């Protein structure tokens, strides 16, 4: 048995991802404050998702409504990403999936694919990663129980964020 209860936290992979990118974005997303998906970037992501692996069979696997894995093949789960900008966040997201699956008694390894860069990265669930994930889960809970969103602090990638006009306009 694992001591971390996934169910009571209801943390999705996206939330893990956002936690490592921007805590404000995480809070806003959680409260349903979403931005219009207008940008070219989002469109590219969607296309990428649809056309990257047309031949692979098991795509988009959803477990317990909490995690949505892009591809499951044999002993690997694969997450497709557009760019490496948020690599750390991507690694933790897929690490979270592995951690979650491990809790269900399934051991897998992860691969992050960057079809556009023709690259991929392997992710293995280590003890270090597990403790980092547990920290993150606690951190997410703290952020999400805040009555107001964490203040906007300008980061180098804010200008490309869908929330940019919301945060700084």
């Amino acid at each position, binding site marked *: 048995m694992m001591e971390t209860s996934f169910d009571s936290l209801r943390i999705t992979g996206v939330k893990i991802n956002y936690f490592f990118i921007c805590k404000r974005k995480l809070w806003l997303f959680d409260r349903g404050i979403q931005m219009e998906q207008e940008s070219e970037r989002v469109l590219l992501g969607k296309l990428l998702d649809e056309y990257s692996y047309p031949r692979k069979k098991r795509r988009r696997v959803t477990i317990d409504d909490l995690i949505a894995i892009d591809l499951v093949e044999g002993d690997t789960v694969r997450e497709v990403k557009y760019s490496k900008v948020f690599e750390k966040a991507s690694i933790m997201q897929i690490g979270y999936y592995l951690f979650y699956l491990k809790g269900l008694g399934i051991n897998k390894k992860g691969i992050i694919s960057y079809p556009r860069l023709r690259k991929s990265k392997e992710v293995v669930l280590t003890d270090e990663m597990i403790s980092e994930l547990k920290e993150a889960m606690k951190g997410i809970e703290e952020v999400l129980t805040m009555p107001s969103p964490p203040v906007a602090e300008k980061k180098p990638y804010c200008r490309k964020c869908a929330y940019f006009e*919301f945060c*700084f*306009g």
Partner: protein
Amino acid sequence: MQSYYLLCSGTLKRNENTLLVEKSDGEKKVIPIENIDSIHVFGQMNFNKELLVFLAREGKPLHIYNYYGNYSGTFLPRDKNVSGELLVRQVEHYLDPQKRFFLALAFVEGAMFHAKRNLREYSGTEPFIQKIEEELDKAYSATSIAELMGCEGRAKEIYYQAFNLFLKEEFYFEKREKRPPSNPVNALISFGNSLIYTTILSECYRTQLNPTISYLHEPRERRFSLCLDLAEIFKPLIADPLVFRLINTGLITKDDFDQDLNGCYLNDRGKEKFLKAFDQKLKTTIKHRRLKRKVSYRTILRLECYKLIRHLLGDEVYAPFKAWW
């Protein structure tokens, strides 16, 4: 993305992933759906359910105006962006008298700021500006929304009274009359105000704000009364200067109006001129001081919705938009 204003008569229908406008004279026009922000129907247009389902799927509002160019209603697609949290906070700010007053006053303040800014462009308006300021002072110390509304109403009356100082003589303007507008200036102001209202509704719809919960106006006053609130700030910023310019440059003349028992209204040619100028204005860009980017007036309307959301979420205190240039 932009607004499409349809003055013609004919049929509007779905054609694959585009809208097809078929004018009664046979002319056809195709509008790709992704270019559309909202559609404004002024003419006699036929459309069917398939069109509405398509617009709903794509989240595009359709605003309808009657024969006189008055706002009749909106086909607002089902909500795509809902935030229960925000709705609760909107209600909280309505129910708490202090929180409500804060926002109501902010809207009045923004409105009067732009009204004074307009008058300042013309000579001889100082006494009017001063009187508006007196009303604004009283508004700050008002103790109820009703009292605040009173100050706002009087300040607006003073503002309109100043128009005769600078509008072409033949457009003499006695007083503001809405239903029905009695003379050309009233007709122009009403037309401009409806456009601001629907444009704000379109922008509001793109956010999670619930347009029916308002602060200055009572939520029961109009279906989308929050848009009335926000429109206060932008009517004098966007619509009124257009009225002044169209009249004083002679672009709009008395021939652009029809007068009948129901009052005075822009005819089709007049509407076309106004809509063209309005659309240009919405697309005009300003360098935004905080974003350090050029943004259009239309974007400014959306940013105002964002500011309101930030206020309601306890993120940043709301201050009404005030043109700084």
